[in-house]
């Protein structure tokens, strides 16, 4: 286990260096933060821009800038935002919990909805329940998330006045963004659970379980679900990465002060320190989730543990 973890950690380190290097390089290819700070204003001379670049540390060679970023990482000092000079660690410390709570709630909603629905569809294969679930999931897949978000705001905030349309102020403000993300994830997940379950249900041990006279519930949840858990957990793990990517739009629509919003603004303003920090944190997060998924394999499937 220790060897496995060590190997994983080294891989993680490599991935992070690669990702941050690419991001740091790519964002410097176009545009100029000094120009963004001065809003392309007319009165600003080239000498002024040069002065601002120097203050931001931008006239140093790329690798010097990158190395000082890496040095800062070790002490969790991500530098300061180009826009206003707020310490980046402060921004991340606020945004990370916001994004995590939203992402986890969305995942929970998605799993809570898609597992029972997927099993139901598999068991009722070809019957009306299966058809209905599949049609709904297709519809869910076709909604763009910003459309769903807008519709929810229209119904629950403006017409009914039950939920706040945006912001992060307590549980009520979490509901709509989490449900929006959750519903869209559910649409894909239902199909996956259904397929995995159908495959499992054709296995011989299911036949054996039924032949033993086990109840349908025990057959499905004890024998069926546990065996199709491996592909599903892999999928949910992978999906977490995609979820973090998709969260940008939902965060923006609901004005959720998370990493997505931070990254979006940072790209637009060429705020290098903020963007580099957000990407680093996100890649760490995704690496961590994958690690958890790998460990979960062992817990669920004894065959993996033996190997």
């Amino acid at each position, binding site marked *: 286990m220790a060897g496995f973890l060590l190997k994983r950690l080294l891989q993680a380190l490599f991935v992070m260096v690669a990702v941050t290097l690419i991001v740091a390089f790519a964002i410097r290819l176009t545009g100029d933060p000094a120009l963004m700070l001065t809003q392309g204003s*007319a009165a*600003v*001379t080239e000498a002024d821009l040069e002065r601002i670049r120097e203050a931001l540390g931008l006239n140093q060679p790329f690798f010097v800038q990158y190395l000082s970023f890496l040095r800062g990482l070790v002490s969790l000092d991500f530098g300061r935002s180009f826009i206003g000079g707020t310490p980046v660690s402060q921004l991340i410390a606020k945004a990370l919990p916001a994004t995590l709570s939203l992402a986890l709630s969305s995942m929970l909603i998605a799993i809570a909805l898609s597992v029972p629905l997927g099993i139901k569809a598999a068991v009722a294969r070809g019957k009306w329940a299966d058809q209905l679930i599949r049609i709904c999931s297709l519809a869910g897949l076709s909604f763009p998330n910003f459309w769903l978000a807008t519709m929810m705001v229209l119904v629950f905030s403006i017409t009914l006045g039950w939920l706040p349309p945006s912001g992060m102020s307590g549980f009520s403000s979490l509901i709509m963004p989490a449900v929006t993300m959750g519903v869209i994830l559910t649409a894909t997940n239902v199909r996956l659970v259904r397929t995995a379950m159908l495959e499992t249900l054709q296995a011989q041990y299911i036949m054996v379980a039924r032949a033993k006279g086990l109840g349908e519930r025990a057959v499905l949840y004890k024998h069926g679900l546990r065996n199709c858990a491996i592909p599903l957990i892999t999928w949910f793990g992978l999906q977490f990465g995609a979820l973090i990517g998709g969260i940008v739009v939902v965060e923006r629509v609901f004005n959720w002060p998370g990493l997505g919003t931070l990254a979006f603004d940072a790209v637009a303003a060429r705020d290098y320190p903020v963007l580099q920090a957000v990407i680093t944190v996100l890649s760490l997060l995704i690496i961590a989730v994958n690690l958890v998924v790998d460990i979960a394999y062992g817990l669920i499937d004894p065959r993996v543990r033996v190997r």
Partner: protein
Amino acid sequence: MKNGFLNCFRGLLATGLWLAAASLAHAGGTLTVSSAQDPGSWDPVDTYLVAWAAVATNLYDGLTYRQPDGRLVAGLATSWETLDGGKRIRFHLRQGVTFHDGEPFNARAVKFTFERLLGDQGSKGPQKSNYAAIDHVAIIDAFTVDFYLKLIDPVLLTKLAGYGAMIVPPDYIEEHGEDWFNSHPIGTGPFKFVSYEPKVEISLERFEDFWGTKANISRLDYRFIAEPATAVAELQAGRIDLVMPPGVPIGMVGTIKNKPELEVVTAPGPSVYALRFNTARGITRDERVRKAMILGVDRQAIIDSILGGYAAPIASFQSALSFGYDPDLSPLPYDPDLARRLLKQAGIKPGTQLRIDIRNNNASFNEAVQAVAGYLQMIELNATIKLYESNYFLNDIVPQGKTGELFQQAWGGWTFDYDNTAYFMYHTGEKWNPYDRDAKLDKMLESQRMITDRDQRQSALRAIAKYVADHALELPLYNPNEIFGLNRRVHNFTPVPDSRLRLNQVSVD
């Protein structure tokens, strides 16, 4: 069980009291405003953002103050006189003014403010360049200062009313440091700082010792909401009282007007939009072709249909509020027949291709340009529109002279002086003038800067505007209005043209 009931009852009672308290606080007057952006720092020297000014106008004062109607009046200076042929300005300062923390305002604060702006601290930020005309500030006595100028800046008094020239407290900054000041601003304005949560909100409250008209409302909260649709939804849900520009897109004006408790308030804006011509290459080198394109586009129709009438046509690159605006200079009419004739004279074949380069961040301008392309099609010019990400466009396309035949120009100087844009767009060698080389125009642009007489300078600026229009250096499009979304519980609201909105007069139900 009994205890349970009792606790439950207590809980209800507490909730009831809390609700009552909450509604009382409401009646006491909180105004919640949505602003599109968090400037990240509240220090006047750090930012160029309109979103900064929207808040900071309530926190700080300048030596002068510009009213919503554009008139320059006394601020922290009660009067001033120009000496040494314009090279020195003497300001008499207001007495008995204190900063929000009790620190007294005096000549030392003024000197400190400008030494900071023009010194090392200011050098790190974008504001310094606006005040390059100031050489130094000398204290004459506790309430008199002299500004020594390197060169005459006819717009300086206006510039002292905003942004980098806001007066800051010397003792407070020296005691707490620059970082602290960025996130805990102190000024002399009608509202004082309460709390700031980056990317989320900043809260202010009434400053009881304000020297001018004290605020009616007791609390002023700004929430940062980037997405216009979200800001409007918050307005509709009654959780926000005022949406600052550019929070209300034209497409949503109808939505707001449909709700009886909401209204839309507008003022002429500071920005003007034009498509400039590449006068160095391609068919737009020919003045006749440029004129034909202006004549061929029905600008009024674009304003009426795409901008919902919330804009004014322009004849030169400035709005009606701008110093140098000439009411007698009218835009070329819409005359497609004349346009076709001019193109024919210039020997342009029907179906000639050309490219329009614009930024991708403004939906209504994008639509307007599509309409322009449509009109050009009708005079048999095939225009393709190319969209660029803003930063790339401003950095790698325009200053490098890599644009197509037409390219976007959108600027809004808050100082409302034609010089602030004209000089940089038309003077040879300027960054934002990649194409024109015109010695006569250069001379006109240079000489108006030396004129101290207001009327003379105005006619010099008007002459420049006319010269540019006569040579058709750009296709002038429109000056859009600033659109505010407002809840009707807000009274006494006066919209401003430049987002520098002071809210001490406003009251709420």
